[in-house]
């Protein structure tokens, strides 16, 4: 029986390893292509290892388009939205979890029901609203609709409910107002959850595509990274693929690094979405 165990172990590791290679290959190929030289990129057969990596692709990328500005846009929009969400969602989550006020459950149920509706339903009216406000081609339209999300409120409410009432009651007896309770008791307690929500929102905004696609029409300097990549993708030919891959690398790597650094929180955040049902 022992040989059977050993063999199955080997098979298992081999399998897991092959899947790992499959998962990593596109990423490797992207990075490899981005550091290729123009004369090598289209050679047959393709080389797996670069003998002379070069950053020409990145230089060309920044020459070709204002890629630095695009990165700023993505970071700025995702950053502002994330911070606003953390604040507004935790505030609302606190009210829903620990306060009692008329229509509380009705409002909360109403908010939750919206999660059933695909966002495409609101795409056209959303565009029309932005247009009527004169918000086409502005940061406003990319930020304001997202500064507070239902999912964040739900997540915060679930977690704040777990905070013992005694703590809050004691603080109230000490004469703390709602804002102070929020600041002194709630916020420190939910810090890990805030990190989870923050990562979730940042990721969502960083990768968002359709909304910027319809909002950013004329002012190309306001493009976000996915939008910029989509436009460049349509204009790529021959060895310009190097710059496109450089762009894809720059759009991917910040998130990948963030993920590797805060892996536990990422996975917790993702697993939490599994609990929402």
């Amino acid at each position, binding site marked *: 029986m022992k040989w059977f165990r050993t063999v199955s172990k080997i098979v298992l*590791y081999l399998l*897991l390893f092959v*899947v*790992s290679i*499959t*998962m*990593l290959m596109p990423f490797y190929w*992207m990075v490899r292509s981005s550091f290729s030289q123009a004369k090598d990129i289209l*050679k*047959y*057969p*393709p080389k797996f290892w670069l003998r002379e990596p070069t950053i020409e692709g990145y230089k060309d990328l920044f020459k070709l388009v204002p890629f630095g500005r695009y990165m700023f846009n993505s970071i700025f929009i995702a950053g502002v939205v994330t911070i606003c969400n953390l604040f*507004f*969602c935790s505030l*609302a989550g606190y*009210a829903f979890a620990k*306060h*009692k*006020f008329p229509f509380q459950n009705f409002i909360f149920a109403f*908010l939750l029901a*919206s999660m059933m509706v*695909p966002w*495409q*339903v*609101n795409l*056209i*009216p*959303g*565009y*029309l609203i932005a247009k009527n406000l004169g918000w086409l081609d502005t940061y406003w339209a990319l930020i*304001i*609709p997202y*500064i*507070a999300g*239902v999912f964040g409120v739900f997540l915060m409410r679930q977690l704040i409910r777990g905070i013992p009432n005694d703590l809050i009651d004691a603080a109230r007896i000490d004469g703390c107002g*709602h804002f102070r309770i929020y600041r002194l008791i709630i916020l420190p307690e939910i810090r890990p959850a805030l990190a989870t929500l923050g990562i979730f929102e940042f*990721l969502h905004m*960083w*990768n968002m*595509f359709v909304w910027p696609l*319809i909002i950013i029409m004329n002012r190309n300097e306001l493009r976000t*990274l*996915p*939008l910029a*990549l*989509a436009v460049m993708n349509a204009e790529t030919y021959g060895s310009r*693929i190097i710059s*496109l*891959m450089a762009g*894809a690398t720059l*759009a*991917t790597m910040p*998130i*990948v690094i963030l*993920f590797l650094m805060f892996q536990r929180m*990422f*996975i917790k955040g*993702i697993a939490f979405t*599994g609990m929402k*049902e």
Partner: protein
Amino acid sequence: MGKIKVSEQQKYKHLFKKRPLYKRILSSWLSYLFIAPILIIFIWWWVIPFITSLGLSFCRYDIFNPPKFVGLKNFKTVFTNPVFWVAMKNTAIYTGVTVSIGVTLSLSLAVLLDQKIRFRNFFRTVYFLPSVTSAIAISVVWRWIYSPNKYGLLNYFLSFAKIKPLNWLGELNLILPSVMMMAIWGGIGYGMVIFLAGLQGISNSLYEAAEIDGANAFKRFWHITLPLLRPTTLFIVVWSIINGFQVFEQMYIMVRSIESIGGPLNAGLVVVAHLYEQGFERLRMGYASAVAYVLFAVIFTITIINFTLLKPKD
């Protein structure tokens, strides 16, 4: 002590109830202030659009002229438009295949990783990596991997098996499978992580008892793991179906050409792409709103069906 507290609370509640509604509303102004931001955004960017969209779906609207009420005509057009049905068919195929294969693979990987093995964290991290990267960046990279020329990475791999270069994103019967392959690649990590969380909730004593009863690994999986994973499976299936029906980015990058958003003969046309094209390129906003509502109805129905089918048995 406990009893007194309850009775006191009830007494208090009784008093509280006596106060008229407006007074209660006024006295909880701070709570309303706390939920004001989310409520404003919600009404402004969700409730109003939701209703407007419903209204628009009964109108003809091209931005230029004021909306004109046309009754159910848009919905009639949706259901009689062969292009819509092509989009629906493609979306259904895409969703069916990616969800069934994707969920199976996620579950298998989760079960494999839910053992005492080395580098577990490494494997989990690697499998999950595609789930955090943007669909656009991934599609751009995969389009390059699918390059129809012989130096395309995938075609190069195939050349080892003496297979001629394939025109992955150009051949009618290869377009959807190519995109689906990428979607499965990108999606299994997410399902796996959730399955892993579900698996960790299953207590080991159950397996031990089964092992004593002489159940083999397969039987244990079939009779213990699967039934207990039902809620997790339900969530992942529903989540993946909803996502599958909303697929757009991948198609926008990999399939669209200047002439047609759905690629040659609409072989890669999906519902959201149809909606986008009709609404924002042809400016048929009423029709596009109707498409959106039909999509909503389809997703809703499938979700309900799934809930009833996969509901945990009491």
